[in-house]
Structure formats: structure tokens, C-alpha cells
């Protein structure tokens, strides 16, 4: 009998992971997945990590707070996105994440 391999899918078959953005220049790719309850874990890669890493993290944290989302892991790959782009991609990813879980 085949063993069931855990995948990031809900019992309804909807993906629990949600993504938004791209790896194009001036954009940021955001992936959200379920994490430990009560907090958020953020992993960031950026081409401007030295100069803007803390500021990007702050925008991501603010977006999560604004949309009242906790218990997720955020993986972000930044290609030089402006703040308003980061906020837009976070909002899109969060909406998709909530939609997938609803």
C-alpha cells in the first residue's frame, strides 16, 4: 500500500501556499505558507539586502499586521521592488492565501 506523503494541500485539495509577484527586475516574489501559530517567520533574499533589507522586512511585517495575519511563513525574493510594489505583492499574496484557506 502506498504511503501518503504530506503535501501543502488542504483537505479540499486547495493549495495552502499562496504566491504573488515575480522574479523580474523591480518586482518581488512572495510565497506564504502555514507556519507556527502565534507568530510569523520571514525569509528574505534581496539584491539590495545590505542597503534596504531591514526596510523591506519592515514593509512585509506591516503588511501582515495590516491584514491581521499570523502563523505564516513568508519567503520573499526581492529584485529591487519599491515599497508600494512590496505592499501590493504582499496584499495579493495574503488575499490569495486567505481565499485558499476559506
Amino acid at each position, binding site marked *: 500500500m502506498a504511503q501518503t506523503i504530506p503535501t501543502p494541500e488542504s483537505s479540499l485539495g486547495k493549495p495552502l501556499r499562496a504566491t504573488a509577484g515575480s522574479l523580474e527586475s*523591480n518586482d518581488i516574489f512572495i510565497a506564504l505558507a502555514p507556519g507556527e501559530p502565534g507568530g510569523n517567520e520571514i525569509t528574505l533574499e534581496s539584491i539590495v539586502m545590505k542597503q534596504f533589507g531591514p526596510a523591506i522586512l519592515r514593509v512585509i511585517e506591516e503588511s501582515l499586521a495590516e491584514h491581521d495575519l499570523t502563523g505564516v511563513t513568508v519567503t520573499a525574493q526581492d529584485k529591487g*521592488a519599491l515599497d*508600494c*510594489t512590496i505592499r*501590493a505583492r504582499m496584499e*495579493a499574496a495574503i*488575499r490569495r492565501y486567505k481565499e485558499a484557506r476559506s
Partner: protein
Amino acid sequence: MKHYRSLLFMPGNNPGMLASAGALGADAAIFDLEDAVARTEKDAARILVRNALTELRPEGIGVVVRINALDTPFWQDDIAEVVKGGPDFILQPKCTSPEDARTLIAAIEEREREYGAGRKPIRLLTLLETAAGIENAFAIASAHPKLAGMQLGAEDLTLELGAKRTPGGEEILYARTRLIMACKAAGVKSLDTPYPYVTDLEGLEKDAAFSAQLGFDGKTVISPQHVAAVNRAFTPPEEQLRWARRVMAVARKAEEEGKGAVSLDGMMIDLPIIKRAQLILSRAGEAPVSFTEDTAHA
């Protein structure tokens, strides 16, 4: 308001393009949520465009958002986000009747009321790209006081007609002149279809010059490479500008002195001549004529 010679389409889901909107030389930018955005990215694009409108808005140029057509499941969500950003205009694709235009304007106004007073009212541009749209051109142009202009969309139209699209554009001459006539009769702006052959800059020069010759007020473009040629085609030459300035000077002097009739270089300066001079100056940005001032719906 600056005269819109060139209106540049840019993909609504491309943050780099949206950020550069003010630096590409076009008189207006069209943030596109329709053809340039994949169905699966419509949600993300409208959020990005809303943020670009509020935080990256280019200064000194017009800002237009093309939403999705009324026969799609996207347009109402587009309006819900885009109105928050307050573009100057919303461009309605595949407008086929005056009811289409009025339906969209009502939806925009409803969102404007919901989001609060103090906003500059958003005006509508319609894109005529179907046979029905062209045949209803004047009715659409006169549909509502908030309708500021109409654009021809030749790609979808020629597809529907089964016509071959060519660089010379003979197949769209009727649609072009029909749209111009309807716009002039209704007192709204007429905007030409983009030249679709991106690398054919020689063909573009001819197409843009012909477009201006026909009487279009401006032309949409799909590549930043096309902006300069279109701006040139819709900018009056210096000789015309000098003539127009002289006409206006003579007309003003005659008015101040209470003279009923004056002439310049043997030509009687009457109202049609003055209006032509004003049009030339407005196209050069010397006597700006806004869509509002131009619209004969008062």
C-alpha cells in the same frame, strides 16, 4: 490640461514599467489591466495599479487605466480598486453602445461616492474595437457628459471584420474617419489606434502623420519607441505656430479696439480662423484646451 498627443500603454502587472511611466515622453500613460495581464494575475495587477496611482503617480502627464470589458467577470473588481487610486480617466474596452458607457460611468460614480468626497471625478474614455461600436460611434460619444474621448482599436476590429491588417491601414480608413466624425460632432477627443508593428519606425512615421492629417487629436502607442514619432506628428510645425500666434494677436487687438472685422496677410480673420489658430496653439501646449473645456455637453 496638456494636450494628449501620445498615450502609452503599459502592462499593469509590471512594476518597473509603471514606475517609469513619467519618464518615457508620452503625454499620458495607460496602465493596462486588460490584454497585457494574464487572467490569473488580474487580482494582483489591479492592486499594483492602485498602489502605483497613489504612490508612483507620474507628474505632468495624464494617467489612464484600461480596465477589463463589461462582458468579463473582472471589471467590477477593477473599478473597486482603481477608483481608490483616482486616475484621470478610465478606458473602457469593447464599448459597443451608449448603455455600455453609462453602465460603467454609473459604477464609477457609485465607487466615488463610497470612497468619499473631495476626489476629482474620473472621466471615461471608450475604446471602439467592434463593428457594433463603430456603427454606434456618435451615440456612444454623446452618451454622457463624463465621456471625454474615444479611441479606435483596430486589432480586434479587423479580426472581427476578417480584414487583413496592413501597415498602410487602408482597411481601417472607414472606422478611423467614422470615429473622428462622431467625436467632433459630440465634442469629445478622438484617439487613434496604436501602430502595431513595433520595429517598423518608418511605417510608424507615415501612420502617425496620416493620423494627424485625418484629424485625430492624439494617438495611442504600445511601445516607448513610438512616443517621439507620434509626438512629432501631433505637434504643429513652427511655421504654423507663428501664423497662429499672429492670428490670435490680431484677433485680440481687434476685440480690444471694438473692430468687427480684421484681416491678416489678406485673409479675413473670422471665427473659424481663430478657432483653427487656437487648436494649433493648444496642440503645442501654448493655449491648453482640456477635455472638459472641449466637451460640448455643458
